């Protein structure tokens, strides 16, 4: 999202109903226009397909975190128990690999989970000090907003009518509340 993501060249259509929203997204895309984004109070069924959002690559972060956690945990346990200070505990072998599994498992889960969340927050730019760029206060409550770039729609005055036809409650050019 660029710095002036919600400068007035955006066309914002508000919807009351998720079904109409998905219909409008389909119609807009069928017309060859690109949907800038949709804002919704909850994840909407079939919206991903309608908007053509690709599958997230977050699982790669999970995998990387998991592998890192597993390998480093096992390596550390081996280093500690076999190489750095072998200690005879109840006659068990220095390399008690089976007994090392539980801790390695926990650290795999821990680092996979934290890596997933870190990747999500970084990719979606979620952080406490980030100022919310909210298209309207109601989109976190009960309304849905379909946002288009105005410079595309400027050449197609039909778009506004198309949005109303698909159940938009209100279509306007507006700047984001800062």
């Amino acid at each position, binding site marked *: 999202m660029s710095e002036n993501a919600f400068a007035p060249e955006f066309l914002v259509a508000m919807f009351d109903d998720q079904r109409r929203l998905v219909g409008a997204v389909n119609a807009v895309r069928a017309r060859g226009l690109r949907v800038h984004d949709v804002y919704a109070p909850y994840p909407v069924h079939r*919206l991903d397909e309608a908007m053509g959002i690709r599958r997230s690559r977050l699982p790669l972060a999970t995998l990387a975190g998991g592998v890192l956690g597993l390998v480093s945990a096992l390596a550390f346990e081996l280093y500690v128990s076999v190489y750095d200070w072998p200690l005879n505990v109840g006659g068990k072998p220095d390399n008690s690999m089976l007994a090392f599994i539980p801790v390695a498992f926990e*650290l795999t*889960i821990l680092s996979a*989970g934290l890596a997933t969340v870190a990747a999500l927050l970084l990719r979606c730019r979620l*952080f406490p000090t980030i100022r*919310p760029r909210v298209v309207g206060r109601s989109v976190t*409550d009960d309304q849905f907003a379909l946002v288009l770039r105005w410079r595309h729609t400027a050449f197609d005055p039909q778009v506004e009518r198309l949005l109303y036809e698909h159940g938009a409650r209100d279509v306007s050019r507006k700047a984001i509340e800062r």
Partner: protein
Amino acid sequence: MTPSALAPVSPQKPRPAPRLVQPWIAADVSARRITDEVMHPLISRPGAAWLASFALAVLALAVGVASVAYEVATGVGVWGLNKTVGWAFDITNFVFWIGIGHAGTLISAILLLLRQQWRTSISRSAEAMTIFAVLCAAVFPLIHMGRPWLAFWVIPYPNSRGPLWVNFRSPLLWDVFAINTYLTISLVFWYLGMIPDFATLRDRTAAGSRRLVYSLLSFGWNGSARTWSRYETATTILAGLATPLVISVHTIVSMDFATSVLPGWHSTVFPPYFVAGAVFSGFGMVLTLLIITRTVMHLEHYISIRHLEVMAKVMLLTGSIVGLAYALEFFNAWYGGNVYERYAFVNRASGPYAWCFWIMVLCNVLAPQLLWIRRVRRSVAALFLLSIMVNIGMWFERFVIIVTSLHRSYLPSSWTMYRPTIIEVGTLVGSFGLFFTCFLAFIRVLPMIAMWEVKAVTGHASETTHE
């Protein structure tokens, strides 16, 4: 399929409405109303019932703080432990609280993967319960160390004692890693779930310090569909990770016992038995808390009788698994032919602690069988009573496992009795105080119902009825 099933249905006979497709929350509850009602406790003045409960909880917490302070200042000798019974109240409480936490993760992770919609209205409070229960549990191993200020020694870090590392072969150390991972992942999962709700609260609050706090907590969330898409992926992944995690936690707790050679502990049935027991006790606690909360906070249409009924069914299932495990233990003790093992179980059911054993059987095995009856499952009073019984029964289960096995093992000359001191009772009371103080604060400070999840369920329900 039988031929009659293929026959056309006569149009005169109206079919009964299929019960399974009924929405969990009435579809006519608008999203705005959900926000209003969930926000209400956060902005209104607390009622007398809440204030009285909170005062009671803080009082119990104060008793706990005093008991722990006395124990730490004086030494573990103020407890009733002796050379034979080295684990008793503290480890019982530890296992009890860790078990309570399991229902929260089951509801938020496993039921998410199974796409159970009823979880949405209870998931937030169940997750909160998990975190508070794990905190209560963590207190007990810490104070049992006697010198809790040296608790960081369980963390392997380069130290000036060699470095002398921790023993990775010990189940007690596995516990350290399991519980810290569990607490961390649960906290992250809980917080992540609240981010969209904090954004809702932020946008509903007039400018001021309250709004600033919500704004910081909401991480700049703006409801973008692209963010939602990734968010849902991340939530599913975390649920997938939390599922084996929650099973591993109580498995490892059970290994604290199962890897020893003590009769009554040394058993391969322990991990599944403990996990089922944990879910059972957790659902008992969830029911207790939610029955109180829904009544006091007037949330009956979010946490409906159907929600309570489903939880009762989970309790019936897990309670029956626990009952089966008790029976299996006795069968193995008899069939295994080991005299020590056999004596441990005879002693459990007829020795000096038999009354504990029979309370356990009554509360965990017999009483939940009433849940086969639909009328019992749909009676709030009966469920409340049963949930309290399950809490009591599961506490006694851990006490029975720990104390009866320890107080009479291989060496009859060491046989002895264990009796808790007032300090130990005070610490148990204090842990309940900590738990309820946290929970009561939670329901007034944070949105106790996951607004966005409930809105998604009602929104999709209205979509289906339109079609």
